[in-house]
């Protein structure tokens, strides 16, 4: 397909989805399925009142903290395990256990052990994402080019220089993959964490609207969140990726 068609095709597909939604909702005429226009109106109302922006900001703060922590700690762990075989043997079973632990179990346990507080919320989300990042970065570390590492060693490059100029550029595709799947995973888990044990944030609001059976508000919050995450992908991830990989032509 020619690239000129990509934008219009995406737009048309999105419009079609909205039209189908609107038509289905009008035909169903049920509280359980509000129309697209009603959801947009609710989104505007909730935004104007300031309640939605406030809760969205709180949730995004938790997403950002958990994302930064899980990427940083997970990358460090993955790098170390990919680099040192002994450490890999030592920690591999732990990592697999953490990787396969159901998210809800981890969340509930952390709430029980550390209480219903901000630390627990962020820790629960971080621990859910960390093993994915570690496993992805470990793969990348195992695939590092030995010849370039030898070159760096033979020219006595200092450790930080090697990390920044030899290792990280090779890990970039793995880090982007981890960041992308991480962001999607984290925001889903943050909502669960908020639903189970927070008194603020989008997840908490969803719980309130669930009890009120207010589907319009639930969808309005969902829509707001989807828009923000898409904006992050377009405004931050993609430009950063293009910049980092520009040497590939």
């Amino acid at each position, binding site marked *: 397909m020619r690239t000129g068609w990509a934008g219009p095709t995406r737009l048309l597909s999105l419009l079609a989805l909205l039209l189908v939604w609107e038509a289905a909702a009008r035909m169903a005429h049920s509280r359980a399925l509000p129309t697209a226009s009603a959801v947009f109106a609710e989104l505007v109302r909730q935004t104007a009142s300031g309640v939605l922006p406030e809760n969205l900001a709180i949730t995004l703060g938790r997403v950002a903290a958990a994302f930064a922590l899980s990427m940083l700690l997970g990358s460090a762990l993955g790098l170390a395990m990919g680099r040192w075989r002994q450490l890999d043997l030592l920690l591999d079973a732990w990592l697999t256990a953490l990787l396969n632990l159901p998210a809800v179990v981890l969340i509930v346990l952390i709430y029980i052990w550390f209480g219903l507080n901000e630390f627990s919320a962020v820790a629960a989300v971080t621990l859910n994402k960390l093993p994915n990042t570690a496993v992805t970065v470990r793969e990348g570390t195992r695939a590092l080019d030995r010849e*370039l590492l030898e070159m760096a060693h033979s020219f006595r490059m200092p450790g930080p220089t090697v990390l920044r100029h030899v290792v990280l550029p090779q890990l970039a595709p793995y880090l982007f993959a981890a960041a992308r799947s991480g962001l999607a995973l984290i925001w889903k888990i943050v909502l669960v964490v908020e639903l189970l044990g927070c008194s603020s944030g989008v997840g908490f609001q969803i719980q309130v609207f669930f009890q009120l059976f207010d589907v319009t508000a639930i969808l309005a919050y969902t829509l707001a969140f989807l828009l923000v995450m898409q904006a992050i992908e377009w405004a931050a991830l993609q430009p950063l990726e293009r910049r980092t990989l520009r040497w590939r*032509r």
Partner: protein
Amino acid sequence: MFSADIRRKAFPSPAGEHVVIEDFSLNLGAGEIVALVGPSGCGKSTLLRLISGLDTDYSGRVDWPAGAPRIGTIFQEPRLLPWRTVRQNLRLVVPPDRAQIADALLERLGLAAFADAYPQALSLGMARRVALARALAIDPDLLLLDEPFASLDPESAERCRALLLESWSQRPVAALLVTHDFAEAATLADRVLLLAAGPMRIAAERVVPALRRQRRAAT
């Protein structure tokens, strides 16, 4: 420059162990250029790795009477960082105060126009010249060249050799050169060692006549 005394270097193999080097010694004088010529797989590259310290898994020793040297290595492949420009590739191996010298070297090797290009944009000949520039940029005490001009067309190889000779005439540096090419060995080296395999030993040694070296320096 150094005296290497390699008692034994072996690699694991299906048949148990493959001994590449055994009871091999080599001395290199200050400013001396020695060429190692021999069949593929006879252990020439392995010897370079032992001398440069990239491989420490052997019995024997390499002594450096004048202290730990700065070694500029030119590998069989250029081994440039593809995600850094030519200029950055050089600057990353030199201390910040030598950045200007690195730029001047690019100029001298005819690479100035490509200083801000990524290595992918370079021909193999140019990439090998960048690798040469990188090894010279650190102001080495010793150059280790592992078939530095292999798989180049004759003109590019000739140009690289001329650049190397020119830089030697400006500042003599001891060098160990691995090559398959007798003509290249005789053009560049003061002493040529013919090696035989299994385990590696010196089959013959030829000193290149001084007259020839003078003529070489003049060109």
